[in-house]
């Protein structure tokens, strides 16, 4: 009986749900979303790989690659916190769904030889 007021109010006001793919909400500024890297800043130290609780990051010093398995990532953001050069960041958007699993591989371009001399 007591619910009548609430549901009639619902009927007369706009629905609370969102028609998702057509209408997306704004994300929060501090949301922990997809993990990204600025590869040219990375020093390939491997701390992120060591600290990641789900072991989804692989850093290869020889091949100069930084690899993340986005499907294993749990969005905890520890790697972002511990990165000594702050090259990792999390976007506020979640990764979009995919039909197949894949790895995200970043290869570091060899630094220009002039750079060390300039700094």
């Amino acid at each position: 009986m007591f619910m009548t007021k609430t549901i009639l109010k619902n009927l007369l006001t706009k629905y609370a749900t969102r028609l998702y793919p057509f209408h997306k909400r704004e994300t929060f500024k501090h949301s922990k979303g997809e993990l990204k890297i600025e590869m040219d800043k990375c020093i390939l130290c491997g701390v992120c790989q060591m600290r990641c609780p789900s072991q989804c990051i692989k850093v290869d010093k020889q091949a100069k690659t930084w690899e993340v398995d986005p499907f294993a990532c749990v969005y905890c953001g520890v790697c972002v916190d511990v990165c000594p050069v702050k090259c990792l960041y999390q976007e506020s958007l979640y990764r979009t769904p995919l039909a197949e699993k894949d790895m995200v591989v970043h290869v570091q371009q060899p630094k220009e030889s002039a750079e060390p001399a300039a700094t």
Partner: protein
Amino acid sequence: MNTFDVIAVIAAVFLSPLVGGLVAGIDRKVTARLQGRYGPPILQPFYDVFKLFGKEKMVCNYWQIFCAYMYLAANILTVVLLALQSDLLLIFFVLAVGGVFLVIGALAAESPYSQIGAQRELIQMLTYEPLIILVFVGIYLETGSFKISEIVANYHEPLLIALPLLFVVLGYAIVIKLRKSPFDISTSHHAHQELVKGVMTEYSGPYLGVIEISHWYETVFILGLCALFWHTNLIWMSVLIVVTYFGEILVDNITARLTWRWMLPHAWTGGLLMSFANYFWIYAKIK
């Protein structure tokens, strides 16, 4: 059989599933809006049934399928008889037969969910059928006939004015028949109860589609019964139907599910008291 009857039969057979499906769609939409959701498209019940017909046929028992078709046939027949303005008692009999076939179909499968669902469905039938009979008797007492055609021809006042309490009793029976909360005991619309989907648990694919279409006929029949209470004016008839159905949806959304242990005594006492009060009023008026 005259031309009018032929048209009525054709309309009853082919139009009522469309109307019933549409009502189901509107029901879902309105329910969604009452709950603050956007809700599915109005044509969603049709999409659902088309999809069901496209699915693999899973037969666990041939009795079950026979019963599904019999249930459909009985429901079509009730609507046809209503359209032909036939005898109320005959309609009631066919309605009961349809109900029994739904129960037998559920009992044919060995799953405990459908077995217990069938027993609960029997109890529900036991609850709403006396109520419907009481309503029909009231109509007879007021109009002097069980035949709809005679009632329409000889009685020129809305029945609602003479039988307001019996209309409430009918509303009670309809909640049980439509399996809406608080009486979604033997089966419920979204299978969110302890018996999963009760009597319908073991139906799947096209056969579930058949049951679903039977429900559409059932809805039309129920609305037809309501329409009988204001047969004099088409506009007021529609208003009555809309208000009644909205009332049912409202009740669906403001109550918790009750148990049959509560439903049986309460529906009977309430129904009997109101019916007899109404009978008494009819007699007082005649004298």
